[in-house]
């Protein structure tokens, strides 16, 4: 009974957060357009660069043709849109300005408000990105081996990727408790993400040792894995294994959030405290 009540409270919180976020986003329509431009431009540029490479070297790079790259990067654009967060930019500001104090006064863990805020703004931006993806599909003629089972497995993979990415980036954002120079740390993270999540190139194009590194680290499981699954690059067994690894990272990152959050709140002191 108590648990049910708690869940209802949380649901209520998510609904309220959605209303607030929605109202804010309608106010800042221009920022929406900017986010969409940068969310679209980066995968689009890599799509074009790799298509050029593959057309210039006899029609394919590894197992990817120009159409294969188109499918990969359009899928990446969508998965990235669903899973990305901006929390690392925000936390530094919150801690420095002392706004975190308000969040600490609330009777629920502040991560819920952030998840709700993230999901709400996605509900608004995702249709925009899907439209762009459809237009790009018309322009670049993607081709991929779509399987019904892969589409089915894609959904849990996407949800897990979102959760793992959110928890890890939220934990990293907490670095703001200890230092005010988070921008250098963030940049290191983004470089690792660029190379090891499959953004700069599909991981299958990297040398085997680097693929092993990418399999051990969390980055691939936050972005590249659902993309490869969706465009039919994985066998059923590989997909199952991947879901298992994602689940393991979920558990690990949950532990990480708990430990780091407790330690961080202890060192936080707002002005006037």
């Amino acid at each position: 009974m108590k648990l049910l009540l708690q869940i209802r409270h949380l649901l209520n919180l998510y609904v309220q957060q959605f209303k607030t976020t929605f109202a804010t986003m309608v106010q800042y329509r221009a920022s929406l357009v900017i986010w969409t431009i940068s969310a679209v431009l980066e995968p689009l540029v890599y799509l074009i660069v790799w298509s050029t490479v593959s057309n210039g070297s006899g029609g394919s790079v590894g197992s990817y043709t120009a159409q294969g790259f188109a499918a990969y990067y359009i899928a990446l654009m969508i998965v990235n849109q669903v899973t990305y967060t901006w929390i690392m930019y925000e936390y530094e500001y919150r801690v420095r300005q002392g706004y975190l104090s308000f969040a600490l006064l609330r009777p629920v863990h502040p991560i819920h408000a952030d998840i709700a805020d993230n999901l709400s703004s996605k509900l608004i931006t995702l249709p925009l990105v899907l439209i762009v993806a459809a237009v790009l599909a018309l322009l670049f003629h993607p081709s991929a081996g779509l399987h019904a089972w892969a589409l089915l497995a894609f959904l849990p993979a996407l949800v897990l990727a979102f959760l793992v990415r959110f928890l890890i980036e939220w934990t990293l954002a907490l670095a703001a408790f200890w230092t005010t120079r988070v921008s250098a740390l963030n940049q290191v993270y983004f470089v690792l993400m660029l190379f090891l999540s499959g953004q700069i190139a599909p991981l299958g194009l990297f040398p085997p040792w680097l693929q092993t590194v990418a399999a051990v680290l969390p980055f691939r499981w936050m972005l590249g894995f659902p993309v490869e699954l969706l465009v039919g690059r994985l066998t059923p067994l590989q997909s199952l294994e991947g879901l298992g690894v994602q689940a393991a990272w979920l558990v690990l990152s949950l532990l990480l959030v708990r430990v780091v959050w407790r330690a961080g709140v202890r060192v936080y002191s707002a002005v006037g405290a």
Partner: protein
Amino acid sequence: MNFLRLFAVFFRVSLLNEAAYRVNFFVQLFQSLLELGTALAGLAVIFSYTTALGGWRPDEMLALVGVFFLVGGVISLIIQPGMSGLIDSVRDGTLDFTLTKPEDAQLLVSIQRVAVWSLLDLLMGLGVLVVALVRLGEKIGGWQAAGFLGMLLAGSVIVYSFWLILACLSFWFVRVENLLEIFRSMYEAGRWPISLYPGWLRFGLTFVVPVAFATTIPAEALTGRLGIGSLLGSLAAAMGLFALARLILRLGLRRYSGASA
């Protein structure tokens, strides 16, 4: 000359201000090196699968990366800080203090803020460019070198004028910072030769947001790809846009009423 003297003064003041925060220097150095390393590693990945990207060989791409960092450094050193300063002072009414000074208003608003550490990006771009030039060797004649310097200057003037025009919109509209952000994210596409992109995108990156003039065209001049027509067109665009920017700033200033007027 007056410009150089004033710029030196503003630069010195900014440097003195920043000197109090020396750790920032090392943080910025680390971040700039990381960004350069990322760009080079990206090229290495691409060129492990091909010998030329849309006709651009590795050394030529290196020159393009150099130009990208060089112009990017100029943007974040002086153009971006100055223009966001202009927007802020129009909104707050503090532009009054600039206008009452006995110097050209456009010059003053353009150099009022200098982000000193961005000099690192600029120097790194120069370094990469020198390495690329040495490796390209004799292939570069005197005409190409002159064309390159001319296009680099024209490209910088075009980018500067474009930002100034956008910033001047703040005389008429309240929030225009977002427009500047759009340019920053579009500039990323200038890492690669514009000729790779499909027609509609090439058009957009040339005539709607002038990224091509800043990066691809100078690099094309250097590697002997630029026809005389594009060269002259680029020079004309630089002069035209500069004149337009100056005109729009004047119109804006006429409309500006200050903080308490």
